[in-house]
């Protein structure tokens, strides 16, 4: 019952925060240089055309009324038209979203899983050769400059060796000629391999370091000594007693490092021309397509807020000592 109350409170909080973000964006848009329509017309428009457009878009109404229309449109799912594509923004977003989800979740899960396992081993064999190698390479992965690393991977595996495609998500000619779903799936995986590897290495480093330090502090706890005194096997102590508790902070960090992962994801999508939300945002910003950029931004902000709530709840579920 308490938990339900907590979730409800948090949900209300998130809604309010989202509302504040919407409001800030609305006012920033009004503050931005140029007339409201200067972002969508080219200089060849006559003055009458411009006035007509202002009237059509309701931009001649008072600010407060515009704000209400803006909110109403947002909550009825009308996010406006993309200037570049000439399509409703919501169509573009829903076409891009699956690709981002596919790349993002698979790389995060893979990186977290491998990072936790390797971090466990590194901490268990503290200060051995294997620990030094793992920690050092994790540190290098952690401090790499993401776009540069992505470019190097693309250059080496895609260009030099030519084993993997240079970008995109599928080869169109293959999709026209074959209809076997297995080949289609393999084609997507083939295209996904390089961006996946980039994100995997970058995130794996930080998970490994975190798991290692968390595991080291857990290993100092009394109950580990008790377990040893009871004569339990090393493997059971390591995997059941220590690693399970030590992986809790890693779960929280998935939420906290989401901001970092989104930055990295956008850069990776951009370099591997992966048609996801991050690349669309960058594209929209460079083409002055404000409605599209705004929708991408709001989507990312919303995901970040909800993901943090989920991480909170997951943490409480996994650690019975925490109640809300």
């Amino acid at each position: 019952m308490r938990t339900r109350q907590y979730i409800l409170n948090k949900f209300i909080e998130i809604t309010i925060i989202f509302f504040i973000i919407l409001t800030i964006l609305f006012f920033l848009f009004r503050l931005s240089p140029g007339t409201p329509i200067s972002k969508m017309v080219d200089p060849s428009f006559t003055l009458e055309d411009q006035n007509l457009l202002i009237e059509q878009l309701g931009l001649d109404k008072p600010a407060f009324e515009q704000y209400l229309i803006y909110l109403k449109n947002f909550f009825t799912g009308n996010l406006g038209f993309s200037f570049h594509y000439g399509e409703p923004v919501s169509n573009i977003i829903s076409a891009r979203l699956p690709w981002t989800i596919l790349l993002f979740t698979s790389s995060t899960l893979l990186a977290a899983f491998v990072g936790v396992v390797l971090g466990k081993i590194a901490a268990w064999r503290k200060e051995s050769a294997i620990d030094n190698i793992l920690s050092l390479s994790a540190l290098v992965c952690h401090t790499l400059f993401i776009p540069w690393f992505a470019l190097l991977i693309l250059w080496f595996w895609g260009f030099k060796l030519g084993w993997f495609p240079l970008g995109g998500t599928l080869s169109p000619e293959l999709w026209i000629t074959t209809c076997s779903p297995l080949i289609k799936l393999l084609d997507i995986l083939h295209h996904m391999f390089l961006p996946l590897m980039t994100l995997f290495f970058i995130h794996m480093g930080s998970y490994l370091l975190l798991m290692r330090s968390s595991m080291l502090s857990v290993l100092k706890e009394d109950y580990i000594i008790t377990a040893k005194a009871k004569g339990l096997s090393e493997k059971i102590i390591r995997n059941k007693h220590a690693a399970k508790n030590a992986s809790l902070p890693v779960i929280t960090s998935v939420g906290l490092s989401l901001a970092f992962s989104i930055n990295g994801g956008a850069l990776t999508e951009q370099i591997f021309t992966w048609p996801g939300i991050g690349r669309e945002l960058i594209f929209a910003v460079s083409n002055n397509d404000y409605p599209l950029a705004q929708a991408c931004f709001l989507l990312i902000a919303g995901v970040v807020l909800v993901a943090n709530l989920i991480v909170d709840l997951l943490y409480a579920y996994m650690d019975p000592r925490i109640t809300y």
Partner: protein
Amino acid sequence: MSKNHYLARFQKGWQIFILNPLGKTGIILLIVFMLMAASSFFIPLLDPMYDPMTGIDPLIKESTGPSFHHWLGTDNVGRDLFAQLMEGAKVAFIVGLASAFISIVLGTTIGMISGYAGGITDRILMRFADIIMIMPSLVVLLILASLFGQFNIWIIVFIIAIMRWPAVSRVIRSQALSLKSRPFIEASKVAGASDIRIIFRHIMPNVLPLAFLYMTFRVTSAILVEAALSFLGFGDPSQVSWGMMLQWVWKSGHMFQAPYWLIPPGICISLLTLSFYLLGRAMDEVLDPRLRKEEERK
């Protein structure tokens, strides 16, 4: 506490710091980068063609590999890559240090106020900090760029700082909370000190070392975000930063043809990040005795 006491504490800390292999590597790397940044002031004086932004070698029409006159080669319009790399070090230091400094000042002030005031002020400030903390700074910079167009380097620095204070203020707040109930604060309250005086005169000296530790971590993230923004083509077009060099190699389509152009800026960004990270870790150990190795603690 006398001046001597601080000096002794500093010397002891320095000894731990310099004995630490992490700290030593970090310092050496950092010195190399400082020399690079310093040399950027002298290189253009040798010959105007070594100016990182406007200097063009009249004999070169396209990107060429390393040669005697151009140690790292030139870009596609004949600008010297070595000079650009040195200039990039300077820009990275300016961006990193300025933005870290602003975020530390903001974070420390807000953290102290929040911890000392408590109650509703504390709750509002910390919720606010939480929200900013989870927002991806690059994405926020992108949406702002779409609204306001290309930013000047100082505005980028300032926005990064605004995105980066919350982590600092969280730590400072918890310190201020524990300091608040100490007898010396009570004493100065009884003596009639104002809240502002207590915060800046009595709490601040105690939290500053921690704030400076956090500064090293802030430097890294600021450099990375600026580099990423420049790489995407939304940086300050009048500054030659490492991210900008990568943007040029990518935009001009030389990415696969010119490894001598692609590789150095990325190595520099990664190594500079690494050096600040190592520095921060070593300072962590100086300030937090629990992290030191067993034998050193005895």
